[in-house]
């Protein structure tokens, strides 16, 4: 097991469903995510994305197989605190993880529990607020804010822990276009400037075009993997998993079928505009 990566080896995860039934959420997953990588994890509801995320910071244990975070085994209870300091989680629903009645106190909760000096706590709050564009709302009450604003608080709270890896489960589901673009830019910057590993879970294909690598889950197995453009241009395979490429790529794929030679690496609106105007 490597020191600087998240590794899943032959991971199987089963849940019991009531009396005797069992549901296999993940079937034999083998994955390595390098430190500093930006990975988009995509798949339908029920494909195992969230299960995979929860395995990574030891919230749940694999039924069989091993999960290592920077060399630490998530099955080792004594390592869990260290693992969770390295892997920050942002859950689907922000209401599930906001615990304080003032925005800045919520963000301070993690750093304070690391027993950091007050100056450093403040510094981290400032940075996290600024990175998520929440500076104005610092003294507000989370429950009076909108869904998208709460989602940003959850992200800021995770960032304040300065994790090596950030796992975000559908972080854009309640954000508007502006908030979504801001967040994606933030993530890209956190990844490039600070070397934080980003694992972004989404079924919105437009969200993951910045990723280095996409991992497509279907029924608990990895069924497609590669750079975003590679995954998007194998449209038939993607559709089999219940997903569709971004609309711009759908358009490019369809134009290509009609005989126009469009570069396969075009996956964003901006790239398409440049291509046409060139």
């Amino acid at each position, binding site marked *: 097991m490597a020191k600087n990566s998240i590794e899943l080896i032959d991971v199987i995860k089963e849940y019991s469903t009531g009396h005797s039934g069992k549901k296999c959420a993940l079937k034999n997953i083998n994955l390595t995510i390098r430190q500093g990588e930006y990975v988009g994890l995509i798949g339908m509801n029920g494909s195992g994305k969230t299960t995979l995320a929860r395995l990574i910071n030891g919230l749940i244990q694999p039924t069989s197989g091993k999960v290592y975070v920077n060399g630490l085994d998530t099955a080792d209870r004594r390592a869990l605190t260290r693992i969770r300091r390295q892997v920050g989680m942002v859950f689907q629903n922000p209401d599930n993880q906001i615990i304080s009645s003032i925005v800045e106190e919520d963000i301070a909760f993690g750093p304070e529990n690391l027993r950091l000096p007050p100056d450093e706590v403040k510094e981290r709050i400032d940075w996290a607020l600024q990175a998520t564009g929440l500076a104005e709302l610092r003294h507000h009450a989370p429950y009076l804010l909108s869904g998208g604003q709460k989602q940003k608080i959850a992200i800021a709270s995770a960032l304040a822990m300065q994790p090596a890896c950030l796992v975000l489960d559908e972080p854009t589901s309640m954000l508007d276009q502006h908030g979504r673009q801001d967040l994606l830019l933030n993530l890209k910057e956190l990844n490039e400037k600070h070397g934080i590993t980003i694992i972004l879970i989404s079924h919105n294909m437009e969200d993951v075009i910045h990723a280095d690598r996409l991992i497509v889950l279907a029924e608990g197995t990895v069924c497609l993997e590669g750079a975003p453009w590679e995954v998007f241009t194998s449209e038939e395979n993607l559709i089999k998993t219940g997903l569709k490429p971004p609309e711009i790529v759908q358009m490019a794929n369809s134009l290509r079928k009609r005989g126009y030679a469009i570069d396969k690496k075009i996956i964003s609106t901006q790239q398409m505009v440049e291509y*046409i105007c060139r």
Partner: protein
Amino acid sequence: MPVIDVQNLTHVYLPGTPYEKKALDGVTLSVNQGEFLGVVGANGSGKSTMIQHFNGLLSPTAGKVTICGWDTAVKQHRNELWKKVGLVFQYPEQQLFEATVFDDVSYGPRNLGLSSPDIERRTIEALKKVGLEPDTVAGLSPICLSGGLRRRVAIAGVLAMKPEILVLDEPTAGLDPLGKEMILKLIKKLQQEDHITIVMVSHSIREIILLAGRVAVLEKGRLIAFGNIKEVLRQECFQALPGVMLPDYLQLIYTLAGRGKNVNTGIITLAEAELEIAKLLEEKNK
């Protein structure tokens, strides 16, 4: 006569405290019987606040809201309003609380004091409307259903109240593409076949384009555009609005038009956009 009539509606949260916040500022609009109104706007623009006025959960700070002729500011009207207007909140599946799907969906009718055959009939009807097979799901616990199915159960619970107006707040948030499509089709069907008036809040203009007749655009509590979807799309203030998620293909077309390319900006579907791009590529190859 409009079923929803909003005149100069202003709503201030926690007035007179340091947290005072004006969420709605002089909004005026109306919705006719059987219409499909889309409401779009950025996070915090006042969308959710506005729809909570439609069934009297909130009362105007200033202005007047009239629903099916009832003034929402009068407390005695509230019981009627709650029967007439079904409100489906964001992530409604989080409100499921009974042990079985049947009990959950029938919770509303039970509280109307109906007879048990009536309750059963309404429950089964509501489940069928959302595309669930009553025989297979009625006895199950909501917990063992997927997110998309649970959301349909939650919507069935509101439909069992037989509302004349159905208000949905981000009904597709958090669902995968197939789940989204299913919910959108269901909502459209309710409008077309059952003639229920629909108000749908979304930050995805893509969904509104495909379904709604008229659209209301909110920004910082103000109504900045209201009207037919094609007309609103053409307004520049709307295209520049940061909170609105225009589909990428429309953004592409508008950007190209801005760069002086000869494209038709009046289109609304992906297929139409593709034709426009094909035309451009033809010209380029000449």
